[in-house]
């Protein structure tokens, strides 16, 4: 097929690689802080349940982290194999940011991970807590550097261009480029929500399997309370992020909102079928003047349409639909958080159907995060670095057959691994539900009132 040339195949491959990769860091970034929380609760309260919770979740952390590491190594090779033009043009900015990620984050997390996972009986509790903290710092630092680079690719700043090559001028301006603070907070919250739903979903699964130990009850509550606060916060941050995008990347906003022609009082489209040939939408369902109100805080505010950007705007349909998936998931998360916490507060435990909803939403964070990344990354096209480098100018000249081969190989490997990961996750939950029951039953018998208290 003509459309599937090396450029398109390389883009699909990069999208596949990074989509698969991001699933795991999204969990581990926040899960490590959750583990630190469990550890500190155990240290402070002396309640051994928290130690069991830590041991259960640290295994899931180890598995998730391993998948993140191996899929991440692929990324560092991709630049050379498929996108040589990227480093040749913007390497002077991208290189140091990537370098600092490896130096300050990767080694920190990978080294202390060994102590965190297997060193529990070899070092003091204090050092073990410290190791957990170090891994958490490492994962967060890693997110910091890579998001600084990614944000710079969206809203470049602090550089000069000479003969098509980018040179750094101010590192502060490069790192703290206009979209970085928003993207960083947005992603950290996305990670926290993903982790909260994972914890709540797996805990709900254990409860549904008849696990009557306190562990899953503690963590279910932990996950739901986290969702209650984080989901609305994410909506707010997302809104600020959108306003920032309107200021710096108006073409992306036009694609997100499906606005083909500049208009005043633009509607907020809930659904539509964008048609790129006729440059219009079909079957529009929208709230009149909604988009203008949200984006300009004025009912008749003007929003630039795609007509303003000639050929330099992204494809509309994928951005438009991904955005709706992300927002839809966000709204669902807010509702689930409120409903779940309300039931917990009134009734002390969830209804079975609510547990099933949480189980179904175990990976809701993945869906929302991926959709969000598709919005922002496809929304930057046709550029790989906004206004500086087009994606097609960065691609390799490998024969398409090679890229086909690598793409299919990755697709098969990743499909198997994803299946194995999810399968193993629930297998571990079943094992925990069955095996630990004897050792776990003891401490709760002694103090029934205390148990009730934490359940509520």
């Amino acid at each position, binding site marked *: 097929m003509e459309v599937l040339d090396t450029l398109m195949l390389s883009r699909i491959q990069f999208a596949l690689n990074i989509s698969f990769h991001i699933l795991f860091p999204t969990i581990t970034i926040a899960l490590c802080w959750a583990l630190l929380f469990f550890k500190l609760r155990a240290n402070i309260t002396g309640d051994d349940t928290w130690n069991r919770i830590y041991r259960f979740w640290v295994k899931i952390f180890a598995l998730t982290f391993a998948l993140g590491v191996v899929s991440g190594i692929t990324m560092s090779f991709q*630049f050379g194999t498929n996108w040589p033009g990227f480093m040749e043009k913007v390497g002077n900015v991208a290189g140091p940011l990537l370098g600092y990620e490896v130096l300050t984050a990767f080694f920190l997390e990978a080294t202390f991970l060994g102590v965190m996972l297997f060193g529990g009986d070899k070092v003091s509790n204090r050092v073990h807590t410290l190791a957990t903290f170090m891994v958490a710092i490492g994962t967060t630092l890693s997110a910091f550097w890579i998001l600084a680079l990614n944000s710079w690719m969206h809203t470049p700043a602090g550089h000069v261009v000479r003969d098509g090559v980018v040179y750094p001028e101010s590192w502060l301006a490069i790192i703290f480029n206009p979209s970085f603070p928003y993207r960083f907070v947005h992603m950290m919250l996305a990670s926290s929500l993903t982790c909260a739903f994972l914890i709540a979903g797996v805990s709900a699964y254990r409860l549904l399997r008849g696990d009557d130990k306190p562990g899953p009850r503690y963590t279910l509550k932990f996950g739901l309370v986290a969702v209650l606060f984080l989901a609305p916060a994410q909506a707010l941050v997302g809104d600020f992020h959108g306003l920032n995008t309107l200021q710096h990347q108006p073409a992306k906003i036009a694609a997100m909102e499906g606005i083909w022609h500049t208009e005043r009082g633009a509607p907020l489209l809930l659904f539509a079928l964008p048609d790129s040939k006729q440059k219009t939408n079909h079957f529009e369902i929208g709230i009149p003047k909604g988009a203008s109100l949200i984006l300009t805080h004025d009912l008749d505010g003007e929003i630039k349409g795609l007509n303003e950007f000639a050929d330099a705007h992204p494809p509309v349909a994928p951005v438009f639909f991904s955005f709706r998936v992300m927002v839809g998931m966000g709204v669902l998360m807010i509702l689930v958080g409120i409903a779940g916490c309300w039931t917990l507060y009134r009734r002390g435990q969830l209804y079975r159907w609510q547990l099933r909803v949480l189980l179904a939403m175990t990976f809701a964070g993945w869906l929302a995060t991926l959709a969000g990344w598709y919005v922002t990354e496809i929304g930057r096209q046709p550029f790989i670095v906004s206004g500086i480098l087009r994606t097609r100018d960065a691609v390799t000249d490998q024969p398409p057959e090679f890229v086909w081969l690598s793409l299919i190989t990755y697709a098969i490997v990743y499909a198997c691994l994803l299946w194995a990961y999810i399968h193993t996750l629930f297998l571990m939950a079943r094992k925990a539900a069955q095996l630990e029951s004897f050792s776990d039953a003891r401490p709760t018998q002694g103090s029934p009132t205390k148990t009730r208290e934490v359940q509520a």
Partner: protein
Amino acid sequence: MTGSPMLSGLEYWLPVLFVGLMALAFFIYAVLDGYDLGVGILLPMDNKSATASERDTMIASIGPFWDANETWLVLAVGLMLIAFPSAHSLVLGNLYLPALALLVGLILRGVAFDFRAKSPSVHKTRWDWVFKLGSLLATYSQGFMIGMYVVGFEYNLWGLAFALFSGVCVSAGYCFIGAAWLIMKTEADLQRRAANWARTMLWVTLLGLLLISVVNPWVNPEVFSKWFELPQFFILLLVPLTLLLVTMITETYLRGFPGTGERWCWLPFCAAVVIFLLSFVGLGYSFFPDIVPGQLNIWQAAADSSALVPIGIGAAVVVPIILLYTAFSYRVFWGKATELKYH
């Protein structure tokens, strides 16, 4: 293309510094992930219950380290990407498929680590196979890539034959350092088996090194003149002589194993490190200052100094800290490997 251009100050020294740093990262990677991958390849897969527990011990001995070890590859490849972007594109562009094989191998090995511990026991043996074959694939691809790199990416019969052979050598080398690691970290039967493996692999590795040392100057006249011209020939003679000495000491120790026993159990591992180091020095000396032999030297490939300076400063501050906490981690897990328990 070789010979240093007329550069002065930073523009001369920065690329030299970075190629040194990159070589150091590759060297540390080869030693550290070398023993990981070697242990993986050596996993005994015959159908006995004793070997199943041996596999557990072997994997437990590398459990706390593999992750950080693999990070040295990210740093090494990352340094090439950052400091020598055009070399990174040239090398990896020419090694597209072998790099794919390497990555698939590393992925399979890495995930098998966790899946084997968490899946039901029926599947455990299957994941052990994935572990072993993944390790072998990753190792062999690395050897193949080094071979292709040395022959300047000539995809003809001789080039391919050399690269295929180089894959065997690197596999043997990693198996040797893996077996040497096991001699340090295990006891009793497994330790004796490891000593046997180490002895075989030592000789295969040396044979490979010998052949590469003959072929390399034979096909590259520049390399020939670098090694065989007087007076540096006499200084360079130290490389093969040291190699010979180390081999003889190691062979004596391994042949008599477990004669002198525990007190010297670190000896084969140190020997492996020295052998790896000499190979790196030999390869580096042959090609410096080219970063891609015969095609690109370090000054042509280097990124702008505005990018190199901040990374250089960062590396100077952070690498010692990394080495410090890596040492801490090795100290925590010092001594014989014990069963891995999550805590």
